[in-house]
């Protein structure tokens, strides 16, 4: 009657290889999307801080759109619809270069950038205006004051939400399986349909996701402590 666990048929050399390659793609996707998301988020937050009407409006639309449409829809959109808008040569290049990975990375990055830009924006707003004034009173110009005094503090204040968004980003990479990216969830499904040991293989995958999540949280914690402005 009881369920007989059988990890040995899931953890063969071949399947372990699949899992490792799944973890590799998941991490690559996470890292690539994180870098793109962070750069875009900084640009969005700075644009928003300019108080230049059209820029503020554009950023607000970007943020709303990406926060209110399911990520799966965004990924499918980037995969099926976006290439249609591209010139022929670009489309060919994409297809020859692992288009599903690249497009999933962009889609996830865009969505994460929307959330991260909000985190950075609230960080910027949390820096008291007196800090800006103190900087200016020394004779620092606007850009110097922002880069030496305001932005470093804003970044520190946004570390906790940024760690959260990084964690969400990592978990969201599993959505890329919907367009056939061979990341960890995709490989898990493959092993499942090969072996029918559903419970075992998903347990292994769960363990892997958990370990990786803990590593991200641990790194986030280190960063948080390193940049705690001496209040630890």
């Amino acid at each position, binding site marked *: 009657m009881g369920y007989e666990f059988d990890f040995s048929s899931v953890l063969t050399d071949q399947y372990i290889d699949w899992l490792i390659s799944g973890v590799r793609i998941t991490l690559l996707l996470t890292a690539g999307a994180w870098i793109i998301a962070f750069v875009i988020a900084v640009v969005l937050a700075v644009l928003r801080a300019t108080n230049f009407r059209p820029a503020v409006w554009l950023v607000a639309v970007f943020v709303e759109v990406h926060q209110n449409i399911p990520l799966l829809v965004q990924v499918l959109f980037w995969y099926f619809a976006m290439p249609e808008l591209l010139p022929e040569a670009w489309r060919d290049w994409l297809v020859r270069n692992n288009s599903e990975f690249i497009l999933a990375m962009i889609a996830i990055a865009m969505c994460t950038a929307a959330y991260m830009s909000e985190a950075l924006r609230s960080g910027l707003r949390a820096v008291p205006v007196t800090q800006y*004034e103190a*900087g200016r*009173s*020394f*004779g620092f110009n606007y850009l110097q004051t922002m880069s030496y005094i305001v932005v470093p*503090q804003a970044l520190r204040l946004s570390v906790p939400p940024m760690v959260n968004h990084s964690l969400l980003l990592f978990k969201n990479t599993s959505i890329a399986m919907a367009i056939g990216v061979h990341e960890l969830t995709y490989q898990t499904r493959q092993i499942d349909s090969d072996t029918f040991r559903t419970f075992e293989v998903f347990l292994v995958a769960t363990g892997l996701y958990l370990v990786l999540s803990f590593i991200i949280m641990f790194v986030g914690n280190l960063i948080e402590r390193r940049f705690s*402005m*001496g209040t630890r």
Partner: protein
Amino acid sequence: MIRFDKVNKWYGPQLKVLNEVTAEVKKGEVVVVCGPSGSGKTTLIRTINRLEPIDSGSITVNGTDAHSSKNNVNTLRRDIGFVFQQFNLFPHMSVLNNITLAPRKLRGMSRAAAEEKARELLDRVGLADKAEAYPAQLSGGQSQRVAIARSLAMDPPIILFDEPTSALDPEMVGEVLAVMKGLATTGITMMCVTHEMGFARDVADRVWFLDKGNLLEDAKPDEFFSNPTHPRAQRFLADLRH
């Protein structure tokens, strides 16, 4: 060194915060500015380095028109130290970096030279052991002394204080005033908004009394304290003693 000439400033159409202020701070002088809350003291001192714009009149600092758009405001500010009521130390930097930031980035001083100077300044304000500390680890009195050291790092010929002891617990007021008294003997031009009348009596060359944006008194401390000419100043002093 600092000359106000018929300076007027409004906050909006209703509130005139500075009214025809005309006065001069001579080189090396210590001027204490006092007056009731809301009389425009903070505004006045902030107009000197153009943290606040003025509506008419002129302010000449070290021979240059502080409010002329032809003169670079950042160059002006490098020569004017400013100490805030709330210290405004940079919380993400150590005490040492707080002090060396401006000389390194604005004067191109090497880190080593800037740090050597910073340590001298910290020694002067009695905080040689706090170089590596972060602002969050300092008491109010220590923070304000660091803030003073920080504004001295650029060797400004002028230093301005806006109620430097008002945010402090009473037992810490003395240590900050002591640093300021020491500073007053160095020949730096000093302008200080404060209600510490003992300080005014001991070190000020002139006391200015501001009321509703009007500069009602500009006198030597002993004249001001023994014999204020304006009834408002008399009432203000009576309230302080009480």
